């Protein structure tokens, strides 16, 4: 078994990270200029900003891109050589989920510790934070499940691939709303945010977020691992 990543994947990742960094830099450095007012005035609910939505959706778009870049034909060539394709998919899903979970837990725990150190004296609703963390985890797990099993769902259950993607998009929407309801906490614990925002956070955030930013770097490294294609007889 070996890992590889195509130039397309690296390029897509770099472009999206760059766009995010530029967007964040623009947001934090343009003062009251037109761009900032444009971004902050697009509101459907108090504290729900266009940027929050974009940032929340970005990683999943990236994720979908990564899946799509590999194409489906190759999956078919692999599938027909694996009579027990579902069980192999399950192992892929579990491996991916395990990796995600490890980094997510690391992120959540370290993030919470950091939050308590930095914001001593400020009240924090630990239970609601944990509840949000659990909800985000469930959403993330289901999304991963759908992404990994999309092809198999279409084949065995008979639903169109677009249906499972629609479900995924709905989950994304749910996550966007849920993250946007409390951007600060969501930014702290969201498994969506950590996938892409780290470089931007490191640059634009003040020192109190620096530790969090460093933690996000670790998470990003883990996330980058998940976009690698795993070659070999056991995985796809």
């Amino acid at each position, binding site marked *: 078994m070996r890992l590889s990543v195509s130039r397309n994947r690296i390029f897509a990742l770099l472009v999206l990270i760059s766009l995010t960094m530029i967007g964040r830099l623009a947001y934090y450095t343009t003062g009251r200029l037109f761009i900032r007012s444009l971004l902050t005035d697009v509101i459907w609910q108090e504290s729900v900003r266009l940027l929050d939505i974009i940032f929340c959706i970005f990683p999943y778009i990236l994720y979908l891109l990564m899946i799509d870049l590999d194409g489906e034909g190759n999956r078919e060539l692999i*599938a027909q*050589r694996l009579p027990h394709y579902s069980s192999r998919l399950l192992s892929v899903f579990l491996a991916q989920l395990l990796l995600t979970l490890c980094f997510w837990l690391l992120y959540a725990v370290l993030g919470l510790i950091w939050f308590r150190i930095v914001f001593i004296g400020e009240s924090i609703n630990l239970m609601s934070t944990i509840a949000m963390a659990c909800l985000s985890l469930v959403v993330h797990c289901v999304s991963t499940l759908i992404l990994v099993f999309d092809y198999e769902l279409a084949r065995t259950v*008979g639903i169109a691939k677009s249906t499972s993607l629609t479900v995924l998009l709905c989950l994304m929407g749910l996550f966007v709303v849920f993250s946007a309801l409390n951007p600060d906490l969501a930014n702290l614990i969201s498994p969506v945010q950590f996938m892409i925002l780290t470089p931007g956070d490191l640059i634009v955030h003040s020192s109190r977020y620096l530790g969090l930013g460093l933690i996000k770097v670790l998470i990003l490294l883990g996330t980058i691992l998940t976009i690698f294609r795993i*070659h*070999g*007889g056991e995985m796809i």
Partner: protein
Amino acid sequence: MKNPAVLIEQLSVTLGGNQIFDEANFKADYGKVTGLVGPNGSGKSVLFKIISGFVRGTGKNVIVNDEQLLRSTRFPPNVGSLIEEPYFIANLSGLDNLLLLASIKNLITEREIVAYLQKFGLPTDRQAVKTYSLGMKKKLAIIQAIMEQQTVVILDEPMNALDEHSAALTRQVIQDLAAVEHRAVLLTSHQSDDIKSLCQEVFEIQERRIIRQ
């Protein structure tokens, strides 16, 4: 192997609200090239995807290599297919792509794969697939469909994009697969000459049924 390589009985398939097949029947035997003809959009590729296990239908039987596909989520064993344009990993060489696929079942060696590449006139060095022409990709797709001694070989328009020499070579390979290696070859082609000269049996898709010619 007395049973037919592929046996389809009363197959019905509906995709996206469109009925593609209505109680269609089809059979292909080992040692024969079986042709499938029909106009564009008639369902030739869908039938091949059903035989490959990529699409599921309903009916009495879809048996491929003695594996009943209608009541199983398994892919049929020992089937090689070239359907539409298969995807290869662009930044890997043709050899690496084939080695990757071969590593799943570990049935053939690198030397055998190199022999196939040489037979079809494809590079055996590290030239990436993204630099391949359409015809070269087609030949690579044909090789992956036959290289592991698959007993049922599905070739959907294999001669498309091939130059004259490569097309002639492919015709010879198809004939040998059936006559010499006793495999079942399922073939579609818009070149009626290919169907006539290569196929021992021909089926035509007409109004959601498959008619034996």
